[in-house]
């Protein structure tokens, strides 16, 4: 497997291939996309240290076409960045698209979706999380009353133990019944 581009060593590429759902070509393409975001800051040749160390701040990652329009963009970056600030190293970046790729299994996607929707990070999707999700989805167009109504409805449908919030198990239960989730929770790159 000759690595013509020379960005990574063969070992690196192989490690990436083993750890993500991507092929070599896709990894290199993703790297190109990553480099496009900040051509000056990212070296053409990445050592194994660089892939983890050099991080792009959220403001720069946000500019990416695939993420730009996503209302959950900030959350996604935060979830995937190592320190939670939204700054992504190349490995984080690769992880992000690996999870959002088409072949990633449902279980994995569900875990990350849960984290993305869990705005306050309390490990539950509480009412406030749901409200934030709804506001993101509709760009604040729903009135307060309507948001409340939908939140109540969602809890009514899913909250099996009546504690007013969704635990991961409940969330997973719902997602396994949601036929659209697998088709919508992915990004082609």
């Amino acid at each position, binding site marked *: 497997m000759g690595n013509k581009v020379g960005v990574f060593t063969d070992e690196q590429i192989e*490690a990436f291939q*083993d*750890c*993500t759902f991507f*092929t*070599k*070509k896709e990894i290199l393409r993703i790297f190109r996309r990553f480099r496009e975001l*900040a051509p*000056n*800051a990212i070296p053409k040749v990445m050592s194994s*240290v660089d892939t983890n*160390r*050099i*991080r792009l701040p959220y403001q720069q990652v946000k500019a990416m076409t695939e993420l*730009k*329009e*996503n209302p959950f963009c900030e959350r996604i970056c*935060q979830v995937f960045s190592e320190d*939670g600030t939204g*700054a992504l190293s190349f*490995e*984080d970046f690769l992880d992000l698209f690996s999870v959002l790729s088409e072949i990633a*299994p449902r*279980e*994995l996607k569900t*875990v990350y979706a*849960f984290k993305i929707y869990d*705005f*306050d*990070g*309390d*490990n539950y999707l*509480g009412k*406030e999380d749901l409200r934030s999700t*709804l506001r*993101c*989805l509709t*760009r604040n*167009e*729903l009135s307060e009353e*309507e948001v409340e*109504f939908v939140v109540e*409805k969602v809890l009514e*449908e899913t909250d*099996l*133990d009546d504690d007013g919030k969704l635990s*991961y198990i409940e*969330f*997973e239960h*719902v997602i*396994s*019944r*949601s*036929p*659209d*989730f697998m*088709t*919508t929770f*992915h990004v*082609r790159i």
Partner: protein
Amino acid sequence: MNRNRVSPFGENPPPYYSYGEEVEKFDDYYDDALNSVVSGENIPTKKNPIIDNVNDSVLRRRRSRRSARKLRRHQQLLEGESNEPDVIVDDDDEDDDEDDLRTRIEQKKGPGHWTPFLHERRAKLLQKEIKQSSGCCGGSNTNRQNWRKFKIWKKEMSYKLEPWGSWLKNVEGHQGTGVVSYFVFLRWLFFLNLVIFILMLLFVTIPYVAFSNNGYTYVVTGSGVSGMSVASEQTCSPLYQVNVSSDAKTLIQDFLQGSGWMEKTAMFYGFYDSQDLNSFVAGHYSLPLAYLLTSLVILLFSLITMARYTMQSFRENLEDQNEKHQYCNRVFGGWDFALSEEGTAVLKHRSLYKDLAGELAEQRHHEARKNMSSNDKCRLYTIRFFINFMVICILGGSGYLIYWVTDWVTSFLADPNYKTNNDAIVVLLVEFLPSLTITALNGIVPLIFGIVVKAENYTPEFTIKITLIRTVFLRLASLAVLIATIYRIVSCTDKETTCNVGQNACDSLRCWETYVGQNFFKLIVLDFLVKVGVTLGYELPRKILTTKCDAAICKKIGLAEFDIPKNVLDIVYTQTLCWLGFFYAPLIPALATISMFVLFYLKYLSAMYNTNPPEIPYKASKSNNFFMIVLMIAFFLCCLPVGYTMVKLTPSYGCGPFRIYSYMTVCVDATISNFPSWLQTIIGIFTSGSFIIILLVLLSLIIYYTSSKSGARAKMIVMLKEQMIMEGKDKQFLLNRIYELTGEKPGAKKKDNKRPPSNGPRNGPPPSAVKTVNEVHQNGNVSKDNDLTPVDDVPEVVPYNDPDDSTRKTAETAFKREVTPVDWDQVPGDENTNRTTSTVTATNVAFDF
């Protein structure tokens, strides 16, 4: 929370330090939270239930993160890299205090902090590899590596070979997944048609074209089989003549309607004849048999691929039949992560908003319906009845129109001198009249349906459904009428005896199969032209009008919408025509393939540039099913006439591969009669009525078995759900119990637990929790000595997600609030509370009071 930090600055820490403390608390909180989602290792007594659900191989945590960090820091120091201005680089060249602090934060983060699984998996893989290479089986290791490389290569190739992959991505970014599902469906149909075409080409057209010697040197195979007559074939074959004119205009006309020179090409049934191809390899190749078997294989192949395609999505949808989670589906699966275009994203926001608002409106609609007076109800039902009646009338009228037009056209064409009496354009128009009528009806009637349905006051979702059902009905009905009309013409009884050609009132068709083929040929051609016309002649001008013209009225017209249901029905219709026609015109699949191919690019054009995404949110998963069901129904409807032709209709004596047989299936009998007698007996047994009845009974038994099995499972699901709810109630009960014991009112507690709205993500721990910790500090209950206790010595309590979880949390908070410890040993111990007690005691220790 439980791990109080040393403050090297004493009572009044400098501002940045307190910031650090905040970060720490926050980190603690966050770590714990994440911990319990991702890891399962720190939990002393119980395994995290979540981790059981998550596939262990997909989600793991990096263990040696701390050392890796250290290593990295060393490397950085050695390399002495400078900071890039706009990039965050982990640098540690800060003053010692802060560095120390950082290290401690990191240490604490160490095992608990969540890390992306990439690092983790790599570490594991490396470990594995070391183990493997140190073991005895180094040889198999390289083999395995090669195998892995091969698998990666295979995957890469399959991506490369996936046709139109990047095109789909573009569409997805522009229009969303709903529209992409249309394109995927289109691509699927394209390949289906391609396979059908290749089958027909390989087994029918190429053998015949390559090996036929232009005479009727057939070999009558089979002995003792009735229903074969060579004599009538010999007299009738020369009578079937096609007038080929060399006039350029007529040539084009013939090309469009499949007559004249087109009729003599391999496109149509009449071109083939019944000879055995002796020159073919060794032995002989029976063309009639090949023709029949290939057709059957094609039908079977279509059925199997369709069934597989349907089953994929059907399985998922079966679970969701009761529509219990529709709101959740909207909230959690609503956003299309693939969208990358600003305008589309705005539209998607709007569409989601409309969907939710529509849902709310529907709720109100339901409420209004409930409160509706009987008078209003009466009026509504009358309107609905009237409109349904009207729809049936329209459908009936359309059917009759098609019948009448086809009839009239046939009688017009039956006049031998029609070509000389009329202008060529008129003739062309008349030839195309049935197809034109059908296409026009397909275009206009759905519009009427769309208008009248508004008066019926259905819920929005049902409105879409019923309009679609009516449209499907119209499409299939119009085809059915066409087939019936053709059948009436073909099966006309007044025929001359020698060549079985109609006379007097009946139309004289020397080769009726070709006539049927021509009809479908014309329909496909026209259908294709109309699609091209609509895209280029309607959507494109509208786009130009909207973008180039500044007048308000132009802006108001706007872009056309990409109407997914209509588009899908269009291609389903084309596919139906292909299935209907391929038996009578073997190369019609080629036409359909080309049509689908061009359509892909046309629709791509219209999806990318000329249209907006549909405003009504389109549930790809649900509607796909619906379309596949329509396709299935269409398929079975197609099988009926084709099967009937094979079994019951007498083929033309003058043309086609079956000209010497009285029925098409006779050629199978003839072939079987040449088999050895034991094989004949076996075949006889398998095709006998008794065997088929046994088979049917067996099949119905299997169906009964599986259906009762699924019924039992459904009951089981209901039971499990009830059990889940019971568990929830148990938890509530336990909570209340704890409240009672701690002397707090559940209501007050609950209020306290509620978090004020957070302004942004990751707001940190609930303020109440922070406050309590601060209170503890201020009250001085935590002495300096206590503060200095090494962190690692404090037994860690990591929350886990079981019903006890929140119990413990609340207990913790309560504990901190009241400062004075409760005597937990006094807790009356029935079986349920015992568990809680032990956890609470653990908390007691953790707080180190």
